[in-house]
């Protein structure tokens, strides 16, 4: 196996006593003090995540729009001005290459933010698709650091440190501005179900910016948070994770991402297959489960209804905010609806669970 990659903040994590784990080919902080404590801190206050492992790819040239529109299932025309969009990126058969964020960067240029474990695959896929188009595909991941500041106090913490108007920055919008003197692209996005920002800047600035942000936010309760909390937070918010809820063998329609699939936008990779799925009805559907009996549903565990296996768990965990064991499961469509009782096979024993509406957690609106 190739050597694990490290973010520019690796030394900071080690110095902070973080427990490091492998994730998507990267050595990342799982936790600093504890997953549950960090999870609660993000929900109740704010946490700072190093997400520099994420990939950043620039698409530039006269055919940039054409390429992006061909690649993604969402409508690239929606990514305009300061508007960021989320989208799956599909193979012709409707399976998912990756899911990503699209940042329009003015005429003929886009920034795509992709999953860490998929960077090389995505770059190759983008270049294949760019053949014959007047467009350049450039991987700027190594030169780019990314931090996610997530939680109800994120705005209050970041605004005084940023030379940009953040309170007027809407959800899924981006701007440019300095944060503690460092040039950044700042977007009001995240992967936790909370308000917050994702900040992109030059890798070389990462250690100083990380330290200064944590120090500046300390009084307001800001803490470093690891991938463990990031995973439990995104699960409560029912946000899909590539390799679990999305993959080459799972379509975005099966994953319940219908609103990010624009079948009427014109031709794109996967349109024919996805239109056929939509027409015939998907065979499988992602549902939320809350355990009734004791036990934690883990990825791969079988899900049964009326004694018959109907699918499997894609992600499952103890949910710190809810105090319950929850899971996302991919099950045969039409077999069960909200309120239905199912069973999860946990270590060969059938444990009862109930189908619940998604997301499991929605942040209180101000």
């Amino acid at each position, binding site marked *: 196996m190739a050597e694990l990659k490290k973010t520019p903040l690796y030394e900071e994590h080690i110095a902070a006593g973080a*427990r490091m784990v492998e994730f998507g080919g990267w050595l990342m902080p*799982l*936790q600093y003090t*504890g*997953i*549950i*404590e960090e999870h609660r801190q993000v929900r109740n206050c704010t946490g700072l995540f190093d997400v520099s492992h994420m990939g950043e790819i620039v698409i530039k040239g006269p055919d940039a729009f054409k390429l992006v529109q061909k690649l993604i299932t969402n409508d690239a025309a929606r990514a305009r001005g300061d508007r960021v969009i989320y989208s799956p990126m599909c193979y012709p058969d409707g399976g998912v290459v990756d899911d990503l964020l699209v940042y329009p960067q003015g005429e003929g240029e886009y920034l795509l933010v992709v999953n860490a474990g998929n960077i090389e695959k995505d770059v190759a896929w983008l270049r294949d698709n760019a053949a014959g188009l007047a467009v350049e595909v450039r991987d700027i991941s190594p030169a780019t650091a990314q931090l996610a500041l997530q939680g109800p106090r994120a705005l209050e913490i970041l605004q005084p440190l940023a030379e940009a108007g953040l309170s007027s920055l809407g959800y899924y919008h981006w701007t440019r501005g300095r944060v503690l003197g460092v040039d950044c692209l700042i977007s009001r996005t995240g992967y936790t179900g909370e308000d917050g920002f994702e900040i992109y800047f030059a890798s070389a600035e990462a250690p100083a910016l990380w330290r200064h942000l944590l120090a500046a936010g300390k009084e307001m309760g800001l803490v470093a948070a690891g991938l*463990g909390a990031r995973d*439990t937070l995104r699960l409560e918010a029912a946000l899909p994770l590539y390799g679990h809820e999305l993959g080459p063998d799972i379509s975005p329609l099966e994953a319940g991402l219908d609103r990010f699939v624009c079948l009427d936008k014109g031709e794109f990779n996967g349109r024919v297959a996805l239109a056929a799925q939509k027409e015939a009805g998907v065979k499988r559907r992602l549902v939320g489960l809350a355990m009734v009996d*004791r*036990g*934690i549903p*883990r990825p791969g565990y079988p899900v049964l209804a009326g004694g018959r296996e109907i699918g499997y768990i894609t992600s499952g*965990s*103890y949910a*710190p905010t809810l105090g319950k*064991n929850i899971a996302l499961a991919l099950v045969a469509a039409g077999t069960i609806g909200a309120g239905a009782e199912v069973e999860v096979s946990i*270590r060969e024993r059938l444990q009862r669970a109930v189908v619940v509406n998604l997301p499991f957690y929605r942040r209180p609106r101000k």
Partner: protein
Amino acid sequence: MEFPANLYYSKDHEWVEVEGNRARIGITDYAQESLGDIVFVELPQVGDELAAGDSFGVVESVKSASDVYAPIGGKVIAVNEALLDSPQDINADPYGKGWMIELEMSDPAEVEDLMDAGAYQQLVKEEKGE
């Protein structure tokens, strides 16, 4: 990290406290720290017969599930049911409130195959790569 001198230790990171022919069993301080926040515990039934090396339960952290093995054999005479509702006791007090089961030992000589605190501490050092 604590390694109480009055206990016996297994290579699977369980501890055993012997009193007469009764043995109380739990997981070590090092084990709980490695697992992280413990959120679920599965325990055997009173009356179950265990042989040394049998899995007698499961301890789950937020991220993973781990089997727990009986360091010695015997009949289960008590289980710590309080853990079912407060599994975090294992994190907070692994050698006290975090105990898991009590056995009536089938062969008290089996404890001689376990480690003392010094030997176990050495094992932990090696596992941590120190």
